[in-house]
């Protein structure tokens, strides 16, 4: 177990170092997420006022879209100089590699989401931070659910010809439940009278989904990636 975590950490560290040198993924994903929020602002503003209840949806859609961009990029990088083959040839547990990639992505996405959440709260005047910890928990669980499936699919598709098209095609149908739960839970938190019981129900469901998806992904990563 110790060695498993060590390998996962090494993969995270490698990804962070690559990212720290280029900052490519962080900046492109962040910029994309901000543009999505702005695009939605134009779509959901009537007579200078934001449509009520749109903010939760905008936050989560921005997370999903920018997450897809980051997921595609994270494994695209591994294709240069056949780095993926090197990674897979290493005499370590394959699921540890998966976990490493997943954690790297989660760190990146959490940075992006923090900025997006502040931006949405500012632009649409929603009290996201009234129950800040709840929102934090919900966003974290939602991102884990989304990224755990996404990391697996993105890794699976890395050798496929039409990967850029197929990633969203496969990813969204599978992760729609996570988005539904996230949006519903966030709406329960930010409405005029917060419904904490409802938020708790959605959080526990998100946790349930995360457990199923993460287990399935860890279990299938090895056979799926074997050539």
């Amino acid at each position: 177990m110790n060695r498993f975590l060590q390998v996962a950490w090494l993969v995270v560290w490698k990804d962070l170092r690559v990212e720290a040198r280029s900052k490519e993924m962080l900046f492109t994903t962040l910029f994309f997420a901000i543009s999505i929020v702005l695009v939605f602002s134009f779509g959901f503003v009537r007579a200078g006022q934001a449509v009520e209840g749109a903010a939760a949806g905008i936050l989560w859609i921005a997370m999903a879209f920018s997450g897809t961009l980051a997921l595609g990029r994270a494994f695209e990088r591994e294709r240069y100089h056949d780095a993926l083959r090197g990674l897979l040839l290493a005499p370590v547990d394959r699921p540890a590699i998966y976990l490493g990639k997943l954690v790297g992505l989660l760190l990146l996405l959490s940075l992006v989401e923090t900025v997006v959440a502040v931006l949405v709260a500012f632009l649409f005047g929603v009290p996201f931070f009234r129950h800040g910890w709840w929102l934090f928990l919900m966003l974290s669980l939602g991102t884990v659910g989304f990224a755990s499936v996404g990391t697996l699919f993105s890794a699976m598709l890395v050798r496929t010809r039409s990967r850029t098209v197929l990633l969203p095609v496969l990813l969204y149908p599978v992760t729609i439940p996570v988005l539904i739960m996230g949006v519903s839970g966030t709406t329960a938190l930010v409405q005029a009278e917060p419904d904490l019981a409802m938020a708790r129900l959605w959080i526990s469901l998100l946790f349930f989904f995360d457990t199923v998806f993460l287990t399935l992904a860890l279990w299938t990563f090895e056979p799926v990636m074997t050539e």
Partner: protein
Amino acid sequence: MHRRLFPVLSGLSLCFFLVAPVLIVGAPYESTMGLVQKIFYFHFPAWMAMFLAIFILGISSGVYLFRRKPAADRLAVAAAELAVVFGLMGLITGPLWGIKAWGVWWQWDARLTMAVVLELILVAYLLLRQYGGAGSDRLAAGLGLFAMANVPFLYISTEIWRTVHPRTSVVPTLPVDFGVPLWWSLVGFIVLCLALLSLRCRLEEQRAMLDQLYLAVEEE
């Protein structure tokens, strides 16, 4: 897949489907829904046939992923296509019921949304098989497992949330007059699903054989 399986199964399902209309016409009128209630004799069996197809898809995907048996992969493709067809049947008959019961074609409630999501996953599976290119069979097997993992959520969705869709517990508590035609059509649909599955599997087998023959000719 055995050659004689299809004629036997299709003959059997034909028997079921010939008798089913008689039983359905003979069943009593339901007081609130009237004639529209009869959709139920197609709607529920279609979803059950879809669930069967998805479980076959999921299990054969798992077998293919961990045991590398090509036959399991062929079974998975066949099952996925059938799941899409039966799911479409459920998605078409559902709104026909909905317009009478709720006054609208569609409601965004938990059960209906999850049903659409499951159908989308299966269509994505077929798209991956079609456009994924070489090596997509293993990726598709992974997706097949995820599709199966979604079924329990769909099934319990009416129990967790208060939805407009009738609850799952309706079916076992049906009176005998309604129950007999329902179970009859259910068996008919399941046999039809298995018949089509055997036919589709044989097609995949023949394709695989043809590919092997092409390879053998090229090597010579």
